[in-house]
């Protein structure tokens, strides 16, 4: 059945118009066609979308956090990552650090982290993810945040699409996990515990609870891969802490704003976290992140 399904798709993609039965070269009865269509309808595709490293970095900046280089993974460690898992996790981590540096206009760091991400991508055999031309363009536009963000976004898309397209979804998932954990780690390091109540950055960290199940679903898709199985255990520990945090949301009400042609999704949310639970969360994230960056 898979073969017939794949063949149908192949011919369907070929010419720009619907394929005829002759092109398919598989004789199908009306019953077969109905059965295949039924299978197709049931074969639902599900995407689990984690915040990208660029989005994670943007969230930190939008919360008003100050830049701190010490929170980043030093580029000097780049040569110590030699396994597929280490390179994937640290491609994500370095891309997050790179995004963070770019948003805070840390120009030299930005170049250093782009080079570190390139080494990880090259090590994973990701062709043309980050090319020398990208680094040259980065240097030429070092004061143009918009161009820099476009380059970061494009190189990240090159990496994850290459891995997805070349049958490496487990590695693609590990890159995303590495970036997400790095963003969460940086956030927790930048919280001033003397200003815990009504802290905007703490609120952003709590929001990450909304992504923990997406993260686990993403990893579950590659269950059986030993490196992914290890990550599922680690992320499970993080979920156990996130489960101690309460988020209560009122129903979402869409309201269209004609002036900006934008819909505002209105809802009220009540977040409940104690400094003790936050410290536990921070310690758990730090431990996981330490195992990634070593």
């Amino acid at each position, binding site marked *: 059945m898979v073969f017939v399904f794949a063949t149908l798709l192949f011919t369907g993609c070929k010419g720009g118009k619907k394929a005829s039965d002759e092109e398919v070269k598989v004789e199908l009865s009306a019953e077969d066609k109905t059965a295949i269509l039924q299978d197709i309808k049931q074969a639902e595709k599900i995407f689990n979308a984690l915040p990208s490293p660029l989005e994670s970095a943007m969230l930190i900046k*939008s919360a008003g956090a100050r830049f701190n280089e010490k929170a980043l993974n030093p580029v000097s460690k780049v040569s110590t990552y030699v396994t597929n898992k280490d390179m994937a996790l640290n491609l994500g981590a370095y891309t997050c650090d790179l995004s963070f540096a770019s948003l805070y206009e840390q120009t030299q760091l930005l170049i250093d982290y782009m080079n570190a991400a390139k080494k990880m991508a090259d090590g994973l055999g990701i062709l043309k993810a980050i090319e020398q031309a990208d680094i040259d363009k980065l240097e030429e536009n070092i004061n143009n945040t918009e161009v820099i*963000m476009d380059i970061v976004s494009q190189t990240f*898309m090159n990496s*994850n699409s290459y891995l997805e397209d070349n049958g490496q979804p487990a590695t693609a998932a590990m890159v995303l996990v590495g970036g997400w954990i790095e963003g969460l780690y940086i956030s927790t390091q930048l919280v001033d515990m003397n200003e815990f109540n009504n802290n905007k950055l703490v609120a952003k960290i709590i929001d990450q609870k909304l992504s923990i199940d997406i993260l686990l679903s993403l990893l579950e898709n590659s269950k059986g891969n030993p490196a992914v199985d290890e990550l599922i255990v680690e992320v499970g520990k993080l979920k156990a802490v996130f489960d101690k945090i309460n988020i209560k949301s009122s129903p979402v009400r869409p309201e269209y704003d004609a002036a900006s042609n934008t819909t*505002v999704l209105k809802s009220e949310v009540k977040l409940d976290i104690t400094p003790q639970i936050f410290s536990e969360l921070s310690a758990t994230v730090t431990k996981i992140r330490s195992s990634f960056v070593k």
Partner: protein
Amino acid sequence: MVIAFNGAANAQCKAFAKKDCLPELGAYTHDGNYHAAVLVEGEEAELYKTFYSDMEYRVAIVGEAKLPQIEFKIMDSNKNVLYSNKDKDYAKTWDFKLQASQQLKLVVKVSSFNQAGETPASGCVAIMFGFKMKK
């Protein structure tokens, strides 16, 4: 055979996503994530993502020209439909922002040409997100 097909189809989808979907994000910064798949008439795909209160978002969902109209709707965690592009003449993009961060579900469906007995059309459908900081 299946693997070879998937590789070719995915590479085709990536090129399509970059060429036809990415420009739809306009002034929004692409988040760098890539979601694309070959879908057949009548087939559905779902996507789960958390959206944050400090951002303004644009979602762009584009199908290859050989496909019928692409329907998409956005739902909250209680399955309430917050937006459907069917009400907006199958618009390819939707701009939104949130008062509070939420996990939302996107359901994308390739509608049907309704021509019984014919092999269903198939083609790439790409989903991309752009964002900017809330003003």
